[in-house]
């Protein structure tokens, strides 16, 4: 306990909330420790009290009993307005002020903290760039002139304006279309690698929890913790039937979103250069056990799949690079195996082509690779769980 004192950012002690006129408490004596610099996800079915729990941390909802410690300090009774200025807050509807420009919105907390004008302007600039929006273009716009995804980014920028150590996020990506959501989630994870905030993140979506969380707390009714652990361990070893039910079937599939292409060993596929003659390509094809050759351009970028049929036609005078089938299902090393599998299923030859940042060919991932990964992951987690009972040596990173 003592050696971890400095690494605990938020501690909830016996926290309860009973709303007037309700028999059951919404949250009942919840105790929890949230480590510094991690994303902790509160996930559970609707009505389980996860949002109430989160809102008690910045005391938007005042706890009925129990105590809240922020960085070792008991904040249960401090001035709630001053407390909230130290904690970033993002809600699903974002709640940008429609009558204020983007810059004014972001400057809300710094202004309350009496920063000077120059410092505020610089900070607004920095934050807009951080969330990938050009300050010159967006600073003076009003929220209604932005798309949903842009508003969400501004919401995150506004929550980070005074550089709080802790951020509370209540389904921050909930009201955004799936494609934009995926992009924003990835951007946010990349951002978090730099800023290392302590984040409490509420969602009802277990897939989002697995993707975003360093740790996940699965909550039952009255905010009782069913399991509080890393996504890997929750998937491999659900604590009880409730957790297993909540994860749902396909835990193995979900696990695939935890590993990335760069973590697995790539296989190789027979390749040939764009300019090669049909005979050369045929030799490559014959030497391999595959039914097609991957054609690369001069920068090693995948172009087309060429099989024996195509080569036959190439003999008839057609150019090789115009024949064959387009090389689809191309993934980068940071893609999750789950995304890769998805690409693979629809692709020809059940293969995803892996390229580097310059789109140059690196190798391929096939179904065997994925199969193997799932197996080793399960074994590794099982192995890690056994010594776990006595000591927790994980999380050294």
């Amino acid at each position, binding site marked *: 306990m003592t050696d971890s004192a400095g690494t605990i950012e938020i501690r909830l002690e016996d926290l309860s909330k009973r709303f007037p006129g309700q028999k059951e408490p919404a949250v009942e004596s919840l105790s929890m420790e949230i480590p510094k610099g991690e994303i902790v996800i509160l996930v559970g079915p609707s009505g389980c009290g996860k949002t109430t729990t989160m809102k008690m941390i*910045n005391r*938007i909802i005042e706890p009925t009993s129990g105590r809240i410690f922020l960085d070792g300090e008991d904040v249960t009774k401090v001035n*709630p*307005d*001053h*407390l*909230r*200025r*130290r904690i970033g*807050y993002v*809600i*699903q*509807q*974002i*709640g*940008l*002020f*429609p*009558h*204020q*420009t983007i810059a004014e919105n972001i400057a*809300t*907390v710094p202004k*309350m903290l009496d920063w000077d004008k120059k410092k505020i302007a610089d900070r607004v600039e920095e934050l807009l760039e951080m969330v990938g929006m050009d300050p010159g273009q967006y600073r003076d*716009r*009003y*929220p*209604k*002139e*932005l*798309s949903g*995804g*842009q508003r969400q980014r501004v*919401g995150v920028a*506004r*929550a980070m304006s005074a550089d709080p150590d802790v951020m*509370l996020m209540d389904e921050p990506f909930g009201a955004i279309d799936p*494609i*934009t959501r995926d*992009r924003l989630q990835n951007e946010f994870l990349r951002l978090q690698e730099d800023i290392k905030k302590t984040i409490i993140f509420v969602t009802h979506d277990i897939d989002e929890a697995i993707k975003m969380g360093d740790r996940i707390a699965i909550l039952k009714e009255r905010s009782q913790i069913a399991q509080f652990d890393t996504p890997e361990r929750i998937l491999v070893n659900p604590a009880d039937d409730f957790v297993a039910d909540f994860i749902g079937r396909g835990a193995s599939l979900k696990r695939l979103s935890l590993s990335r292409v760069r973590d697995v060993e790539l296989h190789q596929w027979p390749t040939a250069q764009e300019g090669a003659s049909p005979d050369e390509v045929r030799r490559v094809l014959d030497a391999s056990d595959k039914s097609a050759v991957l054609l690369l351009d001069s920068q090693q970028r995948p172009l087309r799949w060429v099989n024996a049929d195509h080569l036959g036609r190439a003999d008839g005078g057609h150019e090789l690079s115009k024949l064959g089938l387009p090389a689809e299902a191309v993934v980068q090393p940071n893609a999750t195996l789950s995304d890769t599998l998805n690409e693979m299923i629809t692709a020809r030859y059940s293969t995803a082509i892996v390229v580097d940042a310059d789109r140059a060919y690196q190798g391929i991932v096939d179904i065997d690779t994925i199969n193997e990964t799932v197996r080793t992951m399960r074994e590794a987690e099982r192995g890690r769980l056994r010594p776990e009972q006595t000591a927790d040596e994980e999380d050294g990173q």
Partner: protein
Amino acid sequence: MPDTEQSNLDQKTAALVARGAPAGRRRSLLGYLFMPVALGIVLVLVWLSISSRELDAAEQNRLALDYILRMTWAHILLTLASTALVLLIAIPVGIILTRPFARTMTPPAIAFFNIGQAVPTIGLLAIFAIAWQFGFFPTVVALAAYTSLIVVRNTMVGLRQVDASVIESARGMGMTKISVLSRIELPLAVPVIMAGLRTALTINVGTATLGAFIGADCLGRLIVSGFSGNRPYITIIGGILVAVLALLVDYLAGIAEDFLRPKGL
């Protein structure tokens, strides 16, 4: 890449909105000029009619320019004073009634303001005249009593329609209740509150005419004296002048509405 496609699209929509906004916000120059020009023409016609007509002594008395100007000014004062009184009472009351602690007070308060609107103004004037005094002040109070409900109600509606998530995010960032009210809720409620004030103002201009019955100076005097002296011409001129003033006031309130509406809405 899809990324740039997306932001291209965003820019296009943003450009559309940005261009669309000012048009919705303010009228064209022609739109602004139409009303004052039309009212000016009516006034010129009135003046031509008066100066080309042979007036008897009573008419000369009532339609003299300085008398009309004095009554018009008194009428404007009645309107402004009663509207100012409404503003001072109704907006704070509307604000208080939307605060959570006042929830139980809301129905009786609304019922109270309802009385003011339900009792005919002419009746209220009569009661004030008998129980209190004749002239300016009872008229101002009667007008304010009649139109307060409108502004109370609009203030409440205006504040309640502010998106709850906007207020929650403001509170969540550590804004105090007072600054949430003054910097977020009230600015966002301005359009609805202004619409209520404009209605109240317009009603007050028209109803101020009734002040003539309890001896308040106003354009109603022309109408009343026309009736009592059997001079329909004076009544008609009085009526036209009240109508012109009411339209002018409404027009000015409309402009104020356009300019006070917060940007970005």
